[in-house]
């Protein structure tokens, strides 16, 4: 279990990016964190990743405090961040330096097969399209089999079709080993498609505002009325988090709205 206990972050310039954020996230759960710009969602993710230390509060994974990058925690950034001097296969095997060459080759080959890029194994990253590059980045993060995978707006730079493909692909890959996924996004659709639970954050200072459970089976039909309902409740919560006056959108109450205040 990943436990966030009153995580706060104040930057040296005095800006409080994150204030007393607490949450408990079960193994295998898919969490989407959504919120307006400046709500500290990326700050939170970086604290969980151990890339930046929180100013106060703790992040613990199975009772182990996270203060620096951890072997059981992987991260995928908004950009693929592939190493341009390594082939696609070597990029995927980058985190497997401790394994023997044969083991590494085997794992990389399986991962390449899994993300559908087997024929690109020896290509250079610059020869890939944006979607292919991000798939390599996903494979690179998954191949060491992390318990927790963090995703920082991973598909926001992609076009709508590629984004949908990759969302489905991510769920497909997730089903292999069922790690915990924590996804930062500003796309309501993406949050509702992927997440078991959507955490809505409120800016200045960033803090938890609302939680919405998405009680939908998978695969989820993006066009079903139920799906629309969940989207609407996330949107409403998001609007409230930004203190926007929301006319009562619809008579049908989404489950999350009960959390308002």
């Amino acid at each position, binding site marked *: 279990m990943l436990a966030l206990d009153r995580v706060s972050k104040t930057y040296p310039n005095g800006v409080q990016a994150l204030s007393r954020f607490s949450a408990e996230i079960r193994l295998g759960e898919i969490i989407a964190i959504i919120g307006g710009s400046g709500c500290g969602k990326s700050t939170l993710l970086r604290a969980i*990743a151990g*890339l930046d230390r929180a100013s106060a509060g703790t992040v613990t994974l199975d009772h182990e405090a996270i203060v*620096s*990058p*951890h*072997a059981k925690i*992987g*991260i995928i*950034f908004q*950009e*693929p*961040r*592939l*190493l*341009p*001097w*390594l082939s696609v296969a070597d990029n995927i095997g*980058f*985190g497997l*330096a401790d394994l023997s060459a044969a083991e590494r080759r085997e794992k990389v080959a399986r991962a390449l097969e899994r993300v559908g890029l087997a024929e690109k194994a020896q290509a*250079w*990253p*610059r*020869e*890939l*399209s*944006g979607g*292919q*590059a991000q798939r390599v980045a996903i494979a690179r993060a998954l191949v060491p089999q992390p318990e927790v995978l963090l995703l920082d707006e991973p598909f926001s730079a992609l076009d709508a079709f590629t984004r949908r493909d990759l969302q489905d692909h991510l769920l497909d890959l997730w089903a292999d080993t069922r790690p915990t996924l924590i996804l930062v996004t500003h796309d309501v659709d993406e949050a509702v498609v992927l997440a078991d639970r959507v955490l809505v954050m409120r800016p200045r200072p960033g803090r938890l505002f609302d939680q919405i459970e998405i009680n939908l089976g998978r695969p989820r039909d993006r066009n079903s009325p139920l799906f629309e309902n969940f989207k609407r409740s996330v949107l409403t919560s998001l609007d409230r988090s930004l203190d926007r006056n929301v006319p009562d959108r619809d008579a049908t109450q989404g489950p999350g709205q009960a959390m308002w205040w």
Partner: protein
Amino acid sequence: MAMISDAPALQQSSEPAESATAPSRAARYARPMLGLLLPLALALGWELVVWFGWSNGRLVPPPSRVFATIAELARSGELVRHIVATLWRVSLGFAFGVVAGTVLGAISGYWSLARRLLDPTVQALRAIPSLAWVPLFILWLGIFETSKIALIAVGVFFPVYLGVMGAILSVDRKIVEVGRTFRLSGFAMIRRILLPAVLPAYVVSLRVGLGLGWMFVVAAELIGASEGLGYLLLDGQQLGKPAQILAAIVIFAILGKLTDWLIEVAAAPFLRWQDAFGRAKGA
């Protein structure tokens, strides 16, 4: 820097590029040949002018006389002696300059305290025209080899120092962060992230440094030497033998190009990942 940006490049498989160049192999070699047209025509023209007696070619000897001079120097063994002397000086000066430039550049690039301490001094020294050191070097190190090699090393040092420091400073922070998420230790971070990221700029700085090394070997040998290609230049001037001066210049050009090419070829296997870019640009 473009070379380490991780933005998706345009999709480019190697097959179409291959098939596009294969039938036009002649065209591929013909294009650089175009550049040779002008110098060859000028040389041939001058050769003919002298041949027909329109000029005696005393101050500007025709190519045939320059090559005859080279051949003669080669036959007597003089040429090899001079080339060896010059190459030896350039190699030693280059080696010292590269080692010092790499070590100090890496320290300044990697460690910001060292950069604050060291860099202003280096930059101030860089502002001094390097030839201004000559009298001092001769006083300190004598008129023989040491002062010459020191001068060449100074010339090589600055571009290498600047290149290494700049390359390290401009390594993409986002790529370094990838290394951090995979928990690379300091040494592994240098070996697996920093070195490959820095290499392209490093090779460029080596080539610039080598070019300056050749420049400074001429200066050093003009100041006082009893052998070396620079000595051939000076000797040709003092004895009024322009063909010998031109012969030395031609050999400088050949050696300079050759050594530059050696660096390029030696680095090529490590920079293969950049090839696609070079090909796309050249096409």
